[in-house]
């Protein structure tokens, strides 16, 4: 079994078999992470460039660790302190780095479509680590892996994504991926944060969090992105918390069995109360551990793909 593509640009129109293969392969790497020596020699001699034009902690560290655990050589590029600050174009930067011979590029950029553009100017395998408001496929894959690990299935499961859907690449990748795996996806948030076009994708829209909680098995709660002007879309952070924040009371009243997920970083007291963030309904730190396994699986499947 191999993936059907040389790149992972998003989960849009990715066949179910590919997603299944990535999730199953991640299980192998999840076991590697429990070993005393958490490293395998599989990608020895491969060079991977982490091209990060946008801030990131979790995703960049997770990719870097996954690369190291597969014994690849890694290079890190961040926008600040690089020649991009001197005015070098994106294309020139990439071509120059590629001239040093890299095999794979993990890219994060504030503009949607940059990973696809990279496939046209580079021979490397391209992995999207988040492009603008478009997609963040490895986050969605690790979310799906974490749900499957906890509930044993994806097919027929009801998953609601809560928060700033319009600004979220995590939401879109999750919608594509979960729908491909046969889950029912809905979204919930203030109207200013919901693009109504989502209904054309077959996504149910809630404006009431209590109803959304009662009718779903899983809540994937997104961060309110204050740095992306989300502040202008809601009257105040406090009001958002009152109407959409997940609290232990809401869980007890609406659905005590609900599974709470969050891609991080959490704004405590905004989208989740501190009690929920540390409580028994959530699997937030499992998501982080599984993220390394998912990225190892993607790197392995692309890096060893037969010509």
């Amino acid at each position: 079994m191999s993936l059907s593509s040389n790149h992972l640009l998003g989960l849009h129109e990715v066949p179910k078999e590919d997603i299944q293969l990535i999730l199953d392969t991640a299980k192998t790497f999840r076991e590697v992470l429990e070993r005393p020596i958490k490293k395998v020699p599989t990608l020895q001699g491969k060079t991977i460039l982490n091209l990060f034009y946008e801030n990131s902690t979790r995703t960049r560290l997770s990719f870097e660790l996954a690369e190291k655990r597969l014994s690849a050589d890694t290079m890190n590029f961040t926008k600040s302190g690089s020649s991009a600050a001197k005015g070098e174009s994106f294309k020139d930067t990439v071509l120059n780095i590629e001239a040093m011979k890299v095999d794979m590029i993990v890219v994060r950029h504030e503009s949607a479509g940059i990973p696809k553009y990279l496939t046209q100017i580079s021979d490397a395998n391209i992995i999207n680590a988040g492009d603008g408001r478009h997609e963040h496929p490895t986050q969605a894959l690790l979310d799906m892996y974490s749900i499957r690990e906890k509930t044993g299935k994806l097919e027929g499961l009801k998953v609601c994504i809560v928060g700033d859907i319009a600004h979220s690449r995590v939401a879109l990748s999750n919608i594509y991926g979960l729908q491909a795996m046969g889950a029912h996806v809905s979204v919930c948030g203030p109207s200013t944060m919901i693009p109504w076009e989502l209904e054309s994708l077959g996504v149910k829209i809630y404006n009431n969090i209590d109803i959304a909680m009662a009718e779903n098995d899983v809540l994937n709660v997104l961060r309110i992105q204050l740095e992306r002007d989300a502040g202008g879309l809601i009257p105040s952070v406090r009001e958002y918390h009152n109407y959409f924040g997940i609290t232990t009371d809401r869980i007890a009243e609406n659905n005590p069995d609900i599974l709470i997920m969050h891609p991080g970083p959490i704004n405590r007291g905004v989208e989740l109360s501190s009690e929920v963030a540390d409580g028994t309904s959530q699997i937030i730190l499992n998501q982080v551990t599984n993220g390394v396994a998912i990225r190892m699986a993607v790197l392995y499947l692309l890096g060893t793909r037969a010509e």
Partner: protein
Amino acid sequence: MDIKAKVIDSVGLDRTTTRLAHEIIEHNKGSENIVLLGMRTRGEFLANRIQEKIGAIENKKPELGILDATLYRDDFRTRLKQPEVSVTDISFDLTEKDVILIDDVLYTGRTVRAALDAIMDLGRPNTIQFCVLVDRGHREMPITADYVGKNIPTSINEEVKVKMTEIDNEDAVYLIETEND
């Protein structure tokens, strides 16, 4: 692909595993410190049977784990087909144990090389011993087995196919002629 000969039948396979179990116990002066590691896929079933045999002789079954050495292979760059990985399942510590690595066929020795590296990453065993049902020759590495069910000299154009009831509906070892290129 033509079957040239059935080299071991089900009765023979049972006798051979019985002998291998006895040899392992004899060589290790008991089964106290022994753990078994079956290599996916058929080595796993062979290891199961040897575990049963040792259990019957010694009144105590040694622990059994399953090793998948795919991630340690040396042929990622040369293969035409991507190998499928599966999970290693070892629920005990290998440190200071006498590890009996079990596989169905010993051929080039490259899989064993990968398995040795995988084991070293899991702990530091006292010894690693290698038990194989069929040794067909053509080694490409300085590797030999400690316990051999049967030596079957083969040509490059032949293949040894081990069948086990757990997945193949019969117990047997066949010698098969592959097509010449």
